Structures are given as structure tokens and as C-alpha cells.
């Protein structure tokens, strides 16, 4: 078996250690994610799924345990620019045009001018926004902004894409369209995706694996492989197996919300 992309070993995270507001966010998380997997983290709000994503991305350091990415510790992986991040808010820079926003990581990584522009063109083509290269973020709809954020995250070919409820603020129709686009991008770019969501349908539709988490302290309660055929499309949602898996995740979630004995 090849080396996992993400390897979490007994990760624990406590915020405000020793204070009255101490929160035990993550407890004994063990998780291994292989290359080209699409893994969704799902759970009730406050279950620490965003915290877990940030531990993987070295935006938060764990209180105990280790996070390894491609065999390196998470910090080294961040310094080596292995992560592409996408948040719920597109987090575009208002003062940059769409193309300049996509270029931001390339500028920071000192890409030569020509390569920078070529990558920007390719990425905008990938998210079908070539005609909007010169627009400012405020001139774009929410869904388009999020596509720019995805293009920006993929521009420097990170080995892992970390997405924190990227479509959470969008309407249902836009979300479904972007889900299809994301799967298309995932297939074309061969990246590994860790995807935080609170939508069961979205998790099942997109993922190769759904990780169900429980709240306070956040821990993994179930690891459900999604064996729906690839490539997925509109017809996937009508597959009987799709409903079965949805039900399985829903039940796992209900289970996880029960108070621990």
C-alpha cells in the first residue's frame, strides 16, 4: 500500500486549557487518508470538524498526537505548500481582480511571470470563468466567487485540497452545480480532498468516504465508505444505493448525537 497523504495519530485538541472556558474539541482522532481520496467530515455543529481540518492544515496545532502529511509533519507540509484551502466565505481580496486573486499564491511562491499567467488562464478555464478574469470580486455572484476560490486553491497544484463548508452559504441549485464541477475538477487534477460539510446529501454525493463525528469532545464515530460508481453525475442522486448510503450516514449522525455512556 502506498503511503497515506494524511495520517493522524491520537490527535487531541483542547482550547483554553486550564481556564473556566476550557473546550475539549478533539479527542483521540486516528485517521488515514490515501491518495486521490475524497473524504468528507460530517457531524453536528461544534463537533470539531473544522478544527480537525485546521489541524491537518497546520492552522491549529494539536494539544497531543501528531498530524503527518505525505510523511512530513503538518508544519513542514505547510511550509512546503502542500495545502490548497477553500473556506465557506470565498475570502477573495476585494482589491484584486479575479485573475489577480487566482495569482496570489503563485506570486507568493515566486512563479515566473509566464508560468503564472499560464496557470491562471488554465485555472480560470477549469472553473469556467475565463470571461471574468478582469472583473472584481464584488461583480461576481456567490457561486462564481467560490469558483474563483477553488481556482486559487488549485493554482499551485497542492497535493491536498482542504475545504471548509465551501458551498455552505450558497443556494441549493448553485450548490448542486458546483458539486458536479468539483467532482469534475477532482477527477482532472488527481488531488486528495478533505471536505467539511453539514449536508448529508453533499457528503454522500461527493465522497469516496464519509467520516461521521460526534460533539463535545469531537471524535470519529463512524467511517463509511461510499461505493457509488464513478464518475458520478446527476443520475447518481437517483441511484437506490445513494438513498441507502444517505440513510446510513443519517443514522450514524443520530447515533453520534446520543450522550456518551
Amino acid at each position, binding site marked *: 500500500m502506498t503511503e497515506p497523504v494524511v495520517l493522524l495519530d491520537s490527535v487531541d485538541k483542547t482550547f483554553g486549557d486550564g481556564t473556566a472556558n476550557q473546550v475539549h474539541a478533539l479527542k483521540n482522532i486516528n485517521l488515514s487518508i490515501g491518495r486521490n481520496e475524497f473524504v468528507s467530515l460530517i457531524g453536528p455543529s461544534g463537533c470539531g470538524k473544522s478544527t480537525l481540518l*485546521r489541524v491537518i*492544515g497546520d*492552522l491549529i496545532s494539536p494539544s497531543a498526537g501528531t498530524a503527518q502529511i505525505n510523511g512530513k509533519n503538518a508544519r513542514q507540509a*505547510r*511550509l*512546503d*505548500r502542500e*495545502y*490548497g*484551502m477553500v*473556506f465557506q*466565505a470565498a*475570502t477573495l*481580496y*476585494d*482589491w*484584486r481582480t479575479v485573475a489577480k486573486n487566482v495569482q*496570489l*499564491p503563485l*506570486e*507568493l*511562491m515566486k512563479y515566473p511571470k509566464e508560468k503564472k499567467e499560464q496557470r491562471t488562464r488554465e485555472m480560470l478555464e477549469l472553473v469556467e470563468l475565463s470571461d471574468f478574469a478582469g472583473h*472584481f470580486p*464584488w461583480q461576481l455572484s456567490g457561486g462564481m466567487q467560490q469558483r474563483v476560490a477553488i481556482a486559487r486553491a488549485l493554482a499551485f497544484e497542492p497535493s491536498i485540497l*482542504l475545504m471548509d463548508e465551501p458551498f455552505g452559504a450558497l443556494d441549493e441549485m448553485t450548490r448542486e452545480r458546483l458539486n458536479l464541477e468539483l467532482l469534475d475538477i477532482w477527477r482532472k487534477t488527481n488531488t486528495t480532498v478533505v471536505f467539511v460539510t453539514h449536508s448529508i446529501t453533499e457528503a454522500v454525493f461527493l465522497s469516496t468516504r464519509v467520516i461521521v463525528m460526534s460533539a463535545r469532545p469531537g471524535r470519529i464515530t463512524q467511517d463509511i465508505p461510499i461505493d457509488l460508481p464513478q464518475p458520478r453525475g446527476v443520475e447518481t442522486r437517483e441511484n437506490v444505493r445513494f438513498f441507502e448510503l444517505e440513510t446510513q450516514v443519517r443514522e450514524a449522525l443520530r447515533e453520534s448525537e446520543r450522550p456518551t455512556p
Partner: protein
Amino acid sequence: MSERSQRIVAPIVIFVVIFLAWEGLVTALRIEQFLLPKPTAILSNLVRVIRIDTADTTVLADNEAAALLRVNRLLVDLPGDISPEVLAPLEEAHIAEFRQGSRRVLLSRGVNLTPILQASWYTLKEALGGLALGGIAGVLVALATARWTATREALLPFAIAANSMPIIAFAPIFNNWFGIDNPFSKMAIVAVMVFFPLMINTVRGLVSVPPRSLELMRSYAASEFAILFKARIPNALPYLFSGLKVAGALAMIGAIVGEYFGGPRIALGVFITQEAALFRFASAWAAIFSACLMGISIYLLILLAERLAMPWHSSFRE
């Protein structure tokens, strides 16, 4: 009418209405000129030079009128340098005019356009010099405090306290420190006045970067330097400009009020106090009018700079 032309026409209509109402009320209520001059009288104080060349040549010979213009320009700067040969006929003409009750010839010194313009230019330089000094200092200190959090925590309460003090009250002290006739004494008071709002606003802009933006930068392993230039400074621009708009108005106030406490005759604040003391209120009003115009011009320039510096900003969306 389109919305755009309406935005331009409406203020002009209001300006004309106020102008006519002021003129009409002063005339109808027979308000004394020293209480409130008519706007036409104030304006004529600003444009009087032109009149000399035309209407008043009936009183003065052409060459005399020319000399008058020349001398008037010099009177403010170098009253001692005027030769008696030049001055005598002028004074004669002045007295003659004065007896006739004409207010159109300007031998009362310094009432014509040139001295007001000169004084305005002098004071404008003080205001802009002080604005530049205080502005640069404010932004530099803001950058330093945004970089070193401890400095910010220590300094910001003092800055906020200092910002609510009437700094103009220090003007006599600054005049004493730097010399009453030295323009730097006014620049210094202006610089201190504009320093605090600019610094506080810039600090707010530098530290109010959305947390997600910073996480994004962190995920790219961006250096502090890159974060400063690519995230913090652009984020601070709108704050900096709103600080500048406050500071621009403060700069004119600081310079003129600073001059009220003393300064060279060429300064606008001194000019206003002297004209008022000599009951030449129309002339004082004209100088005040000029100060207002400069204040508005500074504001408009800042607006223009803002538009050029951040065309992306939400306030310019149509």
C-alpha cells in the same frame, strides 16, 4: 433628468438659492455691513483687482492703476520698500476716492485679490506641510504598532486619549517653541493634530484583516512581509482615507487657528484677525471664503486620490 446630472444640478440650485436669500435678506432687513456683508460685497473683495483695470480708470490714470496693482502686491510683503514717489499719488487717489464714498477702489491695503491669494497660498502650504508630516509619522507609527502587538497595546490608549484633546490649545506653546513667524510652528501644530486620527485609523485597518484572509496567507506559508503588503496594507487603505478626510479638515483649522495666536502678516489667519479688527469685514469674509474653498479643495483632492488608489472599493460602485 438622469440621476447623475441631478446629483450635480441639485447642489448648484441650493447654492444659488442660499446666495440670493442671503443677499436679499441683508438688503431687505438693512443689516449693517459690519454685522453681515452681502455675498456680492464679499465676492467683490475677491475679484476687485479686475475692476481697477476697468471701471476705476476713470478715477486713476492707466499708469496709476498699474502702479496701484503693483504696489498693492508689495504692500503686504514690503511696506517699507515703497518709494514715496510711488506712494504719494496713490494715497492722494485713495483719499479722493474715499471722500467720494466709493468702495470700489482699493487703496485700503490688502483688500484685493492678490494679498488674499498670497495669504491663502502661505497658509495652504502650512496646512499641507503639516498634513504631510503628521500623515507620514502617523502611518509609520501605525505600521510599527501593527507589527509589534505589545507596542500597540501600550500606545493605543494614549493615542485615543490624545485624539480627544483640543490640541489646538497648544498653539501658543508651539509658536513659542518654533518662532511665531516661522511657518514650521503652524506645521507642527497641524502635524500633531492630524497624527492621531490618521494613526488610529491606519492601525484599525491594519489589524482588522478578516481572520480567514490571514489563515489563507498562513496556508501559503506567506512571510510576515508578504502578509503586510498583500493583505494588511490594502485592507487599511479605506481606513486611511477616511482618516485623511478628517485630517484634511483639521489641517486647515490647525493652520488658521494657529495663526490667530500670532504669525507673519502674510498669513491668512493673521489677515482675517487684522481685517476684522479694522472693521473691514467684507475683506475678512472674503479671506474666510478663500479658506473654505481651500478646505473643500483638499477634501476633493483626497476623494480623487481615494478613487485612484482603490477603484475597487464598495463606495464607488454604481
